[in-house]
Each structure stands twice: as structure tokens, then as C-alpha cells.
């Protein structure tokens, strides 16, 4: 089975849907869109099996020469190894589920076909991203998913706000992409290739640990990752990206695309290992993001924005793990996160549809009885997100990160405390949301109950959110290392410096406790003492703080003031092109000369004679002057 088909089939399907336009009926569109992903997923599974059979030996595939110039070569070349297989599987399977869900979710939309075309295009681009064998192709996928993200955020284009959100997403990630482009240039300059494996090998030989060049490269790559994965300081676009349809949020802005940064860093981990400074930066960024986003998530009113900030926060965990050198832990968290966050988004979507596109949590409530199916899956998702111990996948992945943040070679107590703080926050905001939506009194009428096409994917994901954790269990709890073992050919095992079962236990206990504490606080806050809480929240200082957090710590305002407005201002004052003034000025000067000269042509004969005499005087003067000169 040709693994190039994995991205090719979604692309093909996207083309068909795009060209087919409105001529293909909705059923056919659904079949094509979902079928293509199912097919891709199947092939991916087959490919994964093949990789497994060869003990993780990568499958290489050169499709055609993209560019080959003077020794520089970038091909449309794919590589399926343990790491990409994980991503491919998640993308295709979760993607398939989301597509199925979307057939129901988007059923009444007039641009049904366009939606799926973009979705398929996205999946294809994402697959290219993770399968690319060289950085240029990776960049193609990278930008491709950015494009699809743009298209889908702005899918409901009639509202200009959506368009602005889409544009913001594109431009902000583009800033990160620019950093990544610099990294590519530097890599090419130093290693003479952009082939990933070539770069990694050459890098290992070329640079000693801590070499400024590699540090620069790693930092720039980090910049790219930060942009795409909505980490500090480029996180601002993701909450706005919720303007897109919910399946889009689930697929692109939770499960897959935003984790591209994680993939990139994992993919180029050799470089990061050579650059401890960059790695530290990764960890610090991850840590800060996870707290900041968690705090923001606490105060949101829009259900999707809670999830968005939660996503930012969870990716912060992944970055923290990457920064600590816990590569496989990051990937593991990516997998579980993909499941439970997709689950949460889609169930939130189900709620939203049920409430006739109402997204404000404070207008929901009491849905436990009205939407019981959704209630249960949402509960499972929330539990997984809040990392309820033992039964949820989220627990295992997050716990691993928390533990490794302390114990790994690159870890430290500071990271550990941050991670724990994050766990507390996660519990709080997750269950604040949960309680607000499903408990209390119903404030909005339910229009529409989700059908099977929406619920079945949710059930599957709910199952996955629970069981996926069991592929990797900590030492203290069964010690299963299926996942990290699988990744070993690609990602080195984490170096644990503090190996102590007791400490690990302690850590797990603390984190579990904090999760519960978070849930408890949410319970107190929402269920028990909503009145007191409200009073507390009405205090002026708190109002301001809340507002600031709600606006994502006012990063938008800062960027607006520092970058956007100066740019717009500069371009506006120069909209008439000042350089042109030089030339119009020149033309004016010429015209002035004309007017001056025209005055000499007065038509009066004596004046003309005067000209002749002046000429005579001038010529004779020059003559006399030269006489004394010589």
C-alpha cells in the first residue's frame, strides 16, 4: 500500500468537492468527505502495522522532485516513522470522527461542500506536515494547514468579525512561520540541506552542545512552533479562532493543527538537545502559557473560549514536557488531548446546536436532564481534561508530564510547581464550565437533540479518552511503556535523574489531589455559593482583573498598540505614497519654470532686443572673465 495515498486521498477528495461545487448533493459530499478519511485512516493503520513489523524502521517514499537547484533539493518526499505514524493515526482517525460528526453539525449550511472541501484539504495538508521528509515540504504542510485554518475560521464569511478572526490567526501564525523560515535558512546555510534526517545528523556532527548557531536555530524553530501552537507570546489568535464552526475548532484548533508545534520540536529534538537554552525556553514558555491560559479559561463566559484557552494551556503542558526532554510524554499528551479535547469540543458543539447556537455558558444550565447523552460524554471529557486519577487517559499523560517536569534531566522544581498549578487550574475551569452547563436551572430552551451521527463519534471518543491512557502507565501503576517504546526509534527515552518511586507517588498524589481540589473549588464556586462568588467578583479590583484575564491578559491590546496600530497608521499616512510627491514636485517645478519662461515671451519687441543685448553682454563678460582667468 502506497503511503503517499494517505495525504493524497484527502487532497483528491478536496479537489472533487471544490470542483463539484454545488452540483454534488449533500449525501454524496458526506460520503466522499468521510469516505476519503476512512480510507486514509485504513491505509494509515496498514502503514502503522508495517512500521511496527519492521521494528519502527521508517517507510520512505519519494513522489517527485519538487525543486532541485544547484545542489539544493527539496522533494515531495514522505517518511513514515514511529512519530509520524502516531500523528497520522490521530489525524486520520480523529479527523474521520469529526467529519462524521460534522455531516450532522453542518447539515443545514449552504456551503456544505465548501466546508468539507476545506476540511479534507486541511487533513491532507496536516498529513503532509507530519509525513514530510524535508523541512520545505513540512513548511508546505505547515502553511497549508494555516491556510485551511484561515478558510475555516472565516467559513461564515458574512460576518466580518469572523473574517477578522481568520485574518488574525493567519497573520499571527505567519509571524511564527517567519521565524521558522529563518531557521530553515540558517539550517541550509550550515548544513547544506533541508532534509530532516540529514539536518539532524549533520547538526549532531557540526555543533557542540550549546553552540550559538544551533541555539539560534532551535530558538527560531521554537518561534515557529509557538506561533502555530498558540503559545506565549503568540497565543492570542486561538481564542478568536473559535469563530469557526465547532467541528473546525475540534479538529484544527484542538486536536491536530495546534499541536504541529509540538510535532516540529519533537521532530527536530536533536537540535533542541544541542541547544539547552532553547530547550529551557521551550519549557518556560510552556509553563507560563499553561498558567496564563488556565487563568484566562477560568473567567470566560463563552464555552468555546474556555475550551480554547484550555487547549492553549494543555499545549503548554506539551511544551513543558518537550522543554524538559520528555519527548514521548509530550506526544502522549498530544494523543490523549486530541481525544478528549475533540470530545469536549464536539459535545460542546452538540450543546450549542441544541441551544440554537448559544455559546454563553451563563445562558445554559440544567442540561443534564435535557441532554443526557451529551452530559455523559462531556463528563468523561471533562474528567479526562481535569485528569481524574486512574480512569482517564488525561490523568496518565498529564501525570507523566508533571512527574517528568520534576524528575527529568531538563526538569526542575519550578516546572513541577507550575505544572501542578496548571492541574489545579484545569480542574477548576473544566468543572466550572461543566457545572455551569449541565447543572442549575435551564435558561435556554433546547431546540434540537443531537442525532446518531453526532453522538456515535462522541461515544467513540469518550471511550478513547478513557482507555487511551492505558498504553503508557507510570512505574508506580503497572509500568506499561508501550507508547514510549514505540517512539524509541525516533525519540530518545527521557533521562530521569530523580528516580524514586516514593517521590513519584507523592507527585501523583499531589496532582490528583489538586485536580480534585480544583473540581471542589469549582463546585463551591458554581454550585454552592454562587451568590457569594458573584459578590466577590463584583469587587472593583477583581472586575478589572477578571476583564483583563477574560481578554487573555490584554495581549491583544498590547500588540494592537505596539504593532498593528503603528503599522496601520504608517501605511495610512503614506497611502498617497510620499515618494510620488518628489515627482509631482518635480513636475510642479517644471511647470513653474515654464511659467517663468513664458513671461519672457511677452511679445514686446524691445524686450526681445533686450534679450539679444543681455546675451551680448553675457558673452562678452564671459570673454573678459576668461581673459583674466588665463
Amino acid at each position, binding site marked *: 500500500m502506497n503511503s503517499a495515498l494517505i495525504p493524497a486521498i484527502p487532497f483528491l477528495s478536496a479537489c472533487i468537492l471544490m470542483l463539484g461545487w454545488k452540483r454534488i448533493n449533500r449525501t454524496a459530499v458526506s460520503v466522499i468527505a468521510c469516505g476519503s478519511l476512512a480510507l486514509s485512516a485504513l491505509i494509515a493503520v496498514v502503514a502503522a502495522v508495517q512500521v511496527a513489523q519492521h521494528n519502527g524502521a521508517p517507510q520512505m517514499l519519494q513522489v517527485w522532485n519538487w525543486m532541485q537547484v544547484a545542489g539544493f533539493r527539496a522533494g515531495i518526499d514522505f517518511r513514515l516513522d514511529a512519530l509520524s505514524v502516531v500523528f497520522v493515526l490521530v489525524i486520520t482517525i480523529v479527523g474521520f470522527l469529526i467529519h462524521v460528526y460534522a455531516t450532522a453539525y453542518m447539515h443545514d449550511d449552504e456551503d456544505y461542500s465548501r466546508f468539507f472541501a476545506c476540511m479534507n484539504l486541511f487533513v491532507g495538508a496536516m498529513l503532509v506536515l507530519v509525513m514530510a521528509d524535508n523541512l520545505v515540504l513540512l513548511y508546505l504542510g505547515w502553511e497549508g494547514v494555516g491556510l485551511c485554518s484561515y478558510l475555516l475560521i472565516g467559513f461564515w464569511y458574512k460576518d466580518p468579525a469572523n473574517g477578522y478572526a481568520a485574518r488574525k490567526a493567519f497573520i499571527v501564525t505567519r509571524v511564527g512561520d517567519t521565524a521558522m523560515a529563518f531557521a530553515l535558512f540558517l539550517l541550509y546555510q550550515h548544513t547544506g540541506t533541508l532534509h530532516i534526517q540529514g539536518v539532524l545528523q549533520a547538526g549532531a556532527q557540526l555543533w557542540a552542545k550549546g553552540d550559538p548557531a544551533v541555539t539560534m536555530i532551535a530558538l527560531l524553530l521554537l518561534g515557529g512552533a509557538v506561533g502555530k501552537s498558540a503559545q506565549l507570546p503568540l497565543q492570542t489568535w486561538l481564542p478568536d479562532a473559535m469563530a469557526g464552526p465547532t467541528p473546525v475548532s475540534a479538529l484544527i484548533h484542538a486536536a491536530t493543527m495546534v499541536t504541529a508545534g509540538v510535532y516540529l520540536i519533537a521532530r527536530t529534538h536533536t537540535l533542541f538537545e544541542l541547544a539547552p537554552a532553547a530547550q529551557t525556553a521551550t519549557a518556560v514558555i510552556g509553563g507560563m502559557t499553561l498558567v496564563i491560559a488556565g487563568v484566562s479559561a477560568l473567567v470566560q463566559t463563552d464555552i468555546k473560549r474556555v475550551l480554547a484557552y484550555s487547549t492553549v494551556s494543555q499545549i503548554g503542558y506539551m511544551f513543558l514536557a518537550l522543554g524538559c526532554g520528555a519527548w514521548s510524554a509530550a506526544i502522549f499528551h498530544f494523543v490523549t488531548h486530541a481525544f478528549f479535547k475533540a470530545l469536549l469540543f464536539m459535545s460542546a458543539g452538540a450543546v450549542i446546536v441544541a441551544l440554537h447556537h448559544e455559546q454563553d455558558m451563563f445562558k445554559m444550565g440544567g442540561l443534564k436532564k435535557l441532554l443526557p447523552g451529551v452530559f455523559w460524554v462531556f463528563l468523561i471529557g471533562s474528567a479526562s481534561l481535569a485528569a481524574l486519577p486512574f480512569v482517564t487517559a488525561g490523568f496518565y499523560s498529564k501525570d507523566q508530564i508533571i512527574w517528568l517536569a520534576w524528575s527529568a534531566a531538563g526538569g526542575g522544581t519550578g516546572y513541577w510547581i507550575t505544572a501542578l498549578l496548571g492541574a489545579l487550574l484545569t480542574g477548576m475551569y473544566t468543572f466550572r464550565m461543566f457545572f455551569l452547563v449541565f447543572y442549575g436551572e435551564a435558561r435556554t430552551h433546547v431546540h434540537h437533540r443531537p442525532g446518531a451521527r453526532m453522538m456515535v463519534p462522541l461515544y467513540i471518543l469518550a471511550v478513547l479518552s478513557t482507555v487511551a491512557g492505558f498504553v503508557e502507565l507510570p512505574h508506580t501503576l503497572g509500568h506499561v511503556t508501550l507508547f514510549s517504546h514505540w517512539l524509541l526509534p525516533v525519540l530518545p527515552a527521557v533521562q530521569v535523574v530523580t528516580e524514586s518511586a516514593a517521590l513519584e507517588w507523592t507527585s501523583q498524589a499531589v496532582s490528583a489531589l489538586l485536580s480534585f481540589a480544583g473540581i471542589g473549588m469549582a463546585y463551591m464556586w458554581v454550585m454552592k455559593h454562587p451568590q457569594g462568588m458573584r459578590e466577590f467578583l463584583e469587587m472593583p479590583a477583581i472586575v478589572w482583573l477578571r476583564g483583563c484575564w477574560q481578554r487573555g491578559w490584554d495581549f491583544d491590546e498590547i500588540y494592537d498598540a505596539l504593532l498593528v496600530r503603528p503599522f496601520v497608521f504608517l501605511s495610512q499616512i503614506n497611502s498617497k505614497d510620499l515618494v510620488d510627491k518628489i515627482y509631482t514636485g518635480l513636475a510642479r517645478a517644471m511647470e513653474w519654470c515654464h511659467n517663468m519662461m513664458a513671461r519672457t515671451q511677452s511679445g514686446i519687441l*524691445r524686450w526681445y532686443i*533686450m534679450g539679444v*543685448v*543681455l546675451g*551680448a*553682454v553675457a558673452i*562678452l*563678460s564671459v*570673454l*573678459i572673465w576668461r*581673459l583674466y582667468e588665463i
Partner: protein
Amino acid sequence: MDATFFIAAGIAVLATLRVITSYNIMHALLYLVVSLLAVAVVIYVYGAPFMAVLEIIIYAGAIMVLIIFFVMMLNLGLETSEHEKAWLRPRIWIIPGILCLILLGEMLFLIIQNRQPAGNIQVVEPKAVGMALFGPYIIAVELTGILLMAGIVGAYHLGRQQKKISHRFLENFEL
């Protein structure tokens, strides 16, 4: 080079100055005749008797008479003098005057720069002039004929009084 030259030259310059400054055109013309006569004397002094005669006959005689006749024909009288008086204000002549005086200064200065060895005035007999005229310069004489023909034809065409004719676009003109 003697007093004759200086006297004649003085008269010429003074008479010319009067030509420039007089308001009455007839007076000016008469002063010009005086000036021309003085120049004829200078020419004579410079050894060109034939040219001196020609100067008197053609310039002072023919050309000036032509102009005088013309002026009389146009019947330019007192009124013109008044005009001239009005026109000859310092405002009008001061700048051109200065400019010309600068030019004069420059010209005189340049002429004085002459470093040629001084020679005596050499008399050129009319015979020599005639020999040159009808020897090497015969073509020039013929060309002068053509020149005069051009002048005559031009003057004839321009000076002719127009008949009142009924031409389709000349009707508008009052002649």
C-alpha cells in the same frame, strides 16, 4: 590721425546722441544726417574717399530722404512728438541704457586690448576698390543684385495698397 578725425568723431557722437534723445522725428532724422556726414568725414580720413562719397550719396542722401519722405507721408506731427516724450521716461530707458553702457564698456575694453603694431592709415584708391569689386568679388556683386531684387519684390508686395476686394474672409477687415 589728426584733429579732423577727432572733430568729426565728436560731431558724429554728439549728433547721434541727439538722434537718440530728440522727441521730434524730423529733428532726429536731420541729426542723423549730420552724424552720417561726420562719419563720411571720418571715412575720408581713413583713406576711403570713394566710400565717403557713397556714404553721403546713399546713406545721407537716398536712405534718409526715403525715411523722411515716409514720415511725411504718414503725416506724423506734433502728436508723435508728444508720444515720444511720454515714452522716453527714465523708467523706460534707464535699465536698457545701463545695460548698453556695460556693453559699450566691454566692447571698448576689448578693442583697446588690441596689441597690433601701429601702422599708418593707408589710402585705398577707388580704382583698387573697383578692381576688387569687379575682379574677385564679381559673384558678390551679382549676389547683391539678387539681394536688392528680394528687397524690391518684398517691398513691392508689402507696400502695395490693398484694393478693396470682396474675398470671402477678407470682408471683415477694415482697410
